[in-house]
Each structure stands twice: as C-alpha cells, then as structure tokens.
C-alpha cells in the first residue's frame, strides 16, 4: 500500500506566523516523502531550537527535537544506529551555521547518509530579529537589534570547498522546485546540504516571496554538478540573479556503520549478552 499525505497528518497546531516562509517547506517535505513512498515510521526528522525546528511536530513522523545547533550530530548518530531509517534534519540559519557551524564541517567529512535542510531567513526570528550568520552586512536591508552584522557566510561555497557530497539551493518562494530538490537530496546517498532561501514576513521586509521569485533562476542544463570549479564559481556568483538547483555532487565513500562495527542490524534489535566478554579474558593473562 502506498503512502498517502494523510499518513503524515499531525494534530499539532502550527505556531508559525501567517505567511511564514517555513510553511511552503512543510508542505514540500510532506509531498516529497509521499512521492518517495516513505512511510512516517521509516523516517526520522531531527531538529533543534527556533522556528524551523518546529517542523517535525507538524507532521506525524518520528521526531528527535533536540538542542539548538546540535541537531545534525544527533541525526548522524540516529542514522548510524538505525541505518534502515531515512533521516532528515531541519535547522535554521542560526542552528546550522552559527551554533552548529563546527558540526556542519564534520558532518561533511563524516558523510553519513542523511539530508540537512537549512531554512535560511537571514534572521534569528524566534528571538525577535537579531542578525544571523547569513544576514547581509548592507545597512538598511533588515532589522537588527544588535547593529551591523559581520560579513555573511556563504554556506554553499563552504560546503563545495570541503567536497560535500550533495549541495543544492532552492527557495520557499518556489514550491515545486523546493519539493524536487528535497526529493533529490533524500535520494542522494551521502550527506546532502539543501539550502532554502525563505522570507521572514515579520522581521525582514526586503527578502519577500516576490524578491526571491524575481531573482531565483534555475541552474542551466549545461552545468555539470560533478565539476567542483564550476560549482564553486556558481556559489560565488554575486548580483541580482540567484542560481537555484543542484550545485555540486561528489562521489565519495558513504559512512558505513557495518564497516567498523560488523553490525548488520539496527542497534535497537541487538540483545545484551554479558558472557561475550569471556572470550576476551585470555588477552588479560
């Protein structure tokens, strides 16, 4: 029996603002998981703290809503212990690139098979509009309580420079493209970074749905995602046009829990047998 959208229906009331840029992401994730025929009990969504991380509560799905910035490491461990499950992470720009910046670097290295969806609204929305690692430094583009921001982080260039297994960008303003990218990221074997540009309808009057609809431009068919230099150039592209689509894919060894542990079953199924240690006693004689 195939999976239906109703299978993901949650009873939890959505606490996002009306028109929030997270809403199209929620709908796209649900549609993508249904399209991929993944049942809710086979999927784990990990998240941290903020507005974006509330997402898994608005789906009926296995949920690990942990700590701010630490969602990605928890997700890696979920996938290691339960390699039979599909693991996604939903984090905001603060969690993924600020508090969790170090973890992102090492998740790229580790290359566990999971998908990180970063909801980037260039602001700390739930704490009322402070600057985020991706806030534009230009004055007057947005509200910041804490004054002028440092230079914004370029997460795509960073990820490509480190050989991240899958790097893509899309926007909340492009619902169909968004769903397509989520499906591609989930299908990809290895660590996938999906950067989603989304409006914040309360704290940012510049980066609106219209702003992104006008500027986002799908990457042309001539781009080869295996070409790191081309991908890097695309990620550094500055100007009115914002390229969206798959920037980069690398064919790298995917973390294989069985390789080091010899385990061929998820940890939840494994028994406890204290007598196993007896085999080891001879080494201590």
């Amino acid at each position, binding site marked *: 029996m195939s999976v239906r959208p109703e299978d993901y229906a949650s009873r939890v009331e959505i606490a996002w603002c009306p028109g929030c840029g997270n809403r199209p992401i929620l709908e796209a994730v649900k549609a993508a998981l249904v399209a991929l025929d993944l049942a809710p009990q086979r999927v784990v969504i990990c998240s941290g703290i903020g507005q974006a991380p509330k997402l898994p509560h608005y789906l009926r799905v296995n949920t690990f*809503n942990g700590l701010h910035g630490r969602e990605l490491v928890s997700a890696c*461990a979920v996938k290691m212990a339960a390699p039979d499950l599909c693991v996604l992470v939903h984090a905001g720009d603060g969690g993924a690139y600020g508090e969790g910046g170090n973890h992102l670097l090492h998740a790229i290295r580790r290359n566990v098979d999971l998908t990180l969806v970063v909801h980037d609204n260039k602001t700390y929305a739930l704490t009322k509009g402070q600057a985020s690692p991706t806030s534009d430094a230009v004055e007057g583009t947005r509200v910041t309580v804490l004054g002028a921001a440092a230079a914004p982080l370029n997460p795509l260039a960073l990820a490509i420079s480190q050989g991240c297994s899958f790097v893509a960008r899309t926007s909340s303003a492009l619902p169909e493209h968004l769903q397509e990218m989520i499906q591609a990221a989930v299908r990809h074997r290895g660590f996938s970074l999906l950067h989603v540009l989304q409006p914040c309808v309360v704290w940012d009057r510049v980066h609106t749905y219209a702003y992104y609809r006008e500027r986002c431009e799908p990457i042309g068919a001539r781009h080869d995602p295996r070409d790191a230099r081309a991908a890097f150039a695309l990620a550094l592209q500055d100007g009115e046009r914002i390229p969206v689509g798959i920037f980069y894919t690398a064919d790298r060894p995917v973390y294989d829990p069985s390789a*080091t542990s010899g385990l061929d079953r998820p940890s*939840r199924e494994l028994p406890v047998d204290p007598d196993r240690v007896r085999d080891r006693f001879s080494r201590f*004689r």
Partner: protein
Amino acid sequence: MNPHQKNLRVRFAGAAGQGVQTAADLLGRAALRSGRFAYAYADAESRIRGGVNFSQVRVSSEPLMGVTQRCDLLVALSAEAQARCADSLAEHGSLIAARAAAHPRAAPFDLEQLAARAGSRAVASTVGLAVACALAGIERPICLGVVRERFASGGALAEKNAQAVLAGYEAVLGWIRQERYAVPARPEVASRHLWIAGHEAISLGAVAGGVRFVAGYPMSPATGILSDLSSWARDFGILVEQAEDEPAAINMLAGASYAGARAMTATSGGGFCLMCEGVSLLGMIECPAVVVLAQRPGPSTGQPTRTAQGDLRLALHAGHGFFPRVILAPRDVADGFELTARAFDIAERYGVTVFVLSDQLLQDSRAVVPPFDTAGLPRARHLLQPDQLKAMPRYQRYAQTASGVSPQAAPGSSRHVVVVDSDEHDEDGHLTESAEIAARMAQKRLRKAELIRNAKLLAAPEPEGDLDGRPLVLSWGSTYQTLAEARAVLMDRGGDFAHLHLRQLWPLPADRLKSAFERASSLAVVECNPNGELAGLLEQTTLTRIDHLLTRADGRPMHVDELTERIESEVLR
C-alpha cells in the same frame, strides 16, 4: 624481608618514552603467570618524551591493591628519575640504577651497561624488569615469555629484549640472595585470574552491559576507554565515533539512544562541562545514557595526567532544571567492570543518565583480579518489542504512569512514530504551552526520581567492622583499597574503627546513613579533593556534621602509610 611486609614493591622510574609503563605492565603479567597477585599505579607527566614518570608495582601472595609510596626496589632509568625518587626507597630496599650510582643501596651493576651488552641501551627497562622478576621469584621462562609476546613484532628489537631478560637474571645471580625479596606463589591464581587496567575493566563492563554506540573526544584520563572500545568495535559489534567536540559526543549519544542503541561516552572534567547542556537534554527526553566521568584535578585544565575525586557534585548538579539521575563510583578495577555493566541496565530500565565516576588513579591502575563474574549481571533489554507495540492501539513516548517511567520504543520498530522533544512536551512528545501538562510532566520526572530513590540498584552498603560507639570512616571511589589496607594495619595495632564505602553516590541511602551515623562515635570522610565533595553532600542530605575530613589535593593518590598516620592522629586520638 620486613616481617610485616607481604609484598615486593617495585618502582620503575624514568623519562616518558623509556618504557616505564611497559615494564610495570609486564611485571604484573609475569607475576600473574607465576601465580602471584600484582597491583600497579602510574604517575605520569603531561608529555610524550622526557621528564620523570614512574609506575609502582606491588607483587604479593594475597591481593593488595592499596597505593604505596615506599618501594623495595627502585629501578631508575635516568639520573633525574633516581634523584627524584631516591627518598621513596625503603630502608632495606635496593636501587637498580641506569648508571653506576654512588648510593649506599645501589646494586653492583648498572642497567645501561647490561642493556648495551644485550644490544641496545633502549632495552634498559627490560633489564630492570628482569631484575625485578628474578628478585620476586618469578621463573625466567615466564619473564622471557611476556617480553617475547610484547615485542613479537619488533624484529631485531625482540631479540635484544630477550637478551636483556637473560642479562637481568644473570646479574641478580651474582648479587644477593634472591630469597630476600621473593614472594611465595599461589598456583591457582595463574590459571584463572586477569591482569587488567581500570579503563579496560570499565570498557569490558560496557560490553557486558550491551554497549552499541560510543562517542567521545579524547581527554586524559578518559581516553583509554575510547581506545579500548574502538579496538574491540568489530569483535563486539560497537559503533565508535570520535566526535569533533564534546557537545557533539553527548548529542550523538542522545541520538543513538533515541534510536534504541545502548550508548555511552567517556570524558573528564573540562570535556564534561561542555556536555552539560546535553545532560539536561537527556534528562528532558528521558533517553538512557551512560557517562563515564574520569576525574582529574581542576579547576580548568588543572593537572591533566593526575588524579582527583573533585567532580561528584558536578555530576550531581550538571544540567539545568530538575531531572532524575544515578551516580555510581567503582571502588577498584574489578568494580569498574560490574558497575559499568549494571549502569547500562539501570539507564535503560528507568530512562535516565547513569554517571560512572572514575578517576586517573582507577583508569590507569592495573591489578590481578579474579575473572569477572557475568552470571549475576542483568541481560534483559527494556525497550518495547515489535510484538508488544503491534498490540498497542496508540504509543505515547511520555505516557503518564504511576511509576513515572514511560516505556521506550525505538523508531522503526513498529507502525507507531516516536517523538521526543527538548521543549516541555505532552504525552505524545510534542512541544506544549499548556501549564497543566507542564506541571504533569514535572511531576512525572519527580515520581521517577522517587522510584529510583527507593529502588535497590545495588546491594546496600555494609560497614566493615563494628560501628557502635566507634569512629566511622567513609569513602567513595578509588580510595577504597588504600583505606581498607590502612584499616587492616591500624586494627593490627589495636586501633578500632568501622569503614563504610559508598559505590552508589546518588541517590544516597539517606535513612540508612543517618542510623549508622547515630551509632558511630565520630564521623570521618576520606577523599582526594580539597573541599570534601562527599562530606558536603552527606552533611547536606543527613543534616549530620562530619567531624574529620581527610583529604589530599595535590593530584597524587593517597597512600596507605599516609592514611594510616592521619587516621591514627586525627580520628583515633
């Protein structure tokens, strides 16, 4: 031989990299194979080469695992080590020096010369090992055997080490009567017992407890556990991940535990401080976890390679907000195995974090111990099984129960979804703004704490000796063996007191302690920290004054002589 002395105490001292710890390890192994007990502790500086490190080994006919300061044989591999350790030599002891020493107790040969004749000055520590083995009464083939095994892959070095053993045994022949230091053998020890380090016992305990996931960031003195489990990963089916930092380690542990893996981490004070937010997360989501906190002196970086018992109340109060927890502290190497194995069962049974408080002394000590008994260890998993879940019309991760424990299901084991949240949550695991639900959840965690307080996690602590009208001396963690031995010495001298050792530090058996305290004439606590971590906790929980606080806070372990004197002068006076 001193009639009161039932053991040969050998100190190997030298620069880091000279083979001090290897010599101590091999002496213990040879002692075991020859039917003798042994105990070794390590004293090392935070460096890879140079300085002065030492390892002190006791070879005995009975188990003697107290820390001793004096040695009968000082094997000094450098002039600096000789100078630094000379005053540890007992009155009747002998100095085995790297080079001919103008010392009244020096042996008439020097290690470097013998080593050079064996093929390399680098094997001087092996000559010293052979001298110690010969004097203890360990047969040459046994010494040769352990040396050959250790250097089997060393090529030419293996042969030089073998030659070094022969040279050491030969040197002793022409020197003193071997009987002077010989330790009688106990053949039954050789066939059954183990020569094992504290960190190895804890690691093996984790395996016995069913560990499947380990994440950690290297930090002395906890690193041994990560190395052990990493090298055994394939044999026992364990996922071991070296995390990028401690927050990653503890949050990985939380993720793995949520997914149904028995999970642990091992760290020391500074690393643990970085984990505290994760400890609170584990408390909130009620996922089982085992955290080995191997203590070293603080504050801050403190003394990285040295020992302390300074973090009891850190473990007790780590993490914001209230949630139940359990703190266990192994009293010696063998206990490290048992308590760690039990920690995993307790953690999963109640959905709590269990802290195992170790320290540098315990981590790096080695002892000859009886083979670990696995028969009495728990072997059930406490996760809801697929057939149970199948029969449930609905699953709620935080279902309200009378006990406060909500049965844990792992995601993927049924059609139900499993939701956990670091926010205050409802029974389903979804974040809530409801005051009523928040109060209910706080009550649930409180009920669970009460359940754990009243549960029999370990055998109740029993005092050694009659405590009525006598002083009661309390201890915890790695000071146990040293205090037990000091007590035996004092009892021989007619000093009478009772000893109560606590292996479970939280929850404390407050009622039991109070009644014991009322019967005793005075109370003393022995611990390796400046401020009295346990003493303070006991005063707070039992509202009873601790009369004597016997502490040591220089990063070194307390030793038997020191403790004997201090109890005699401060507690028994």
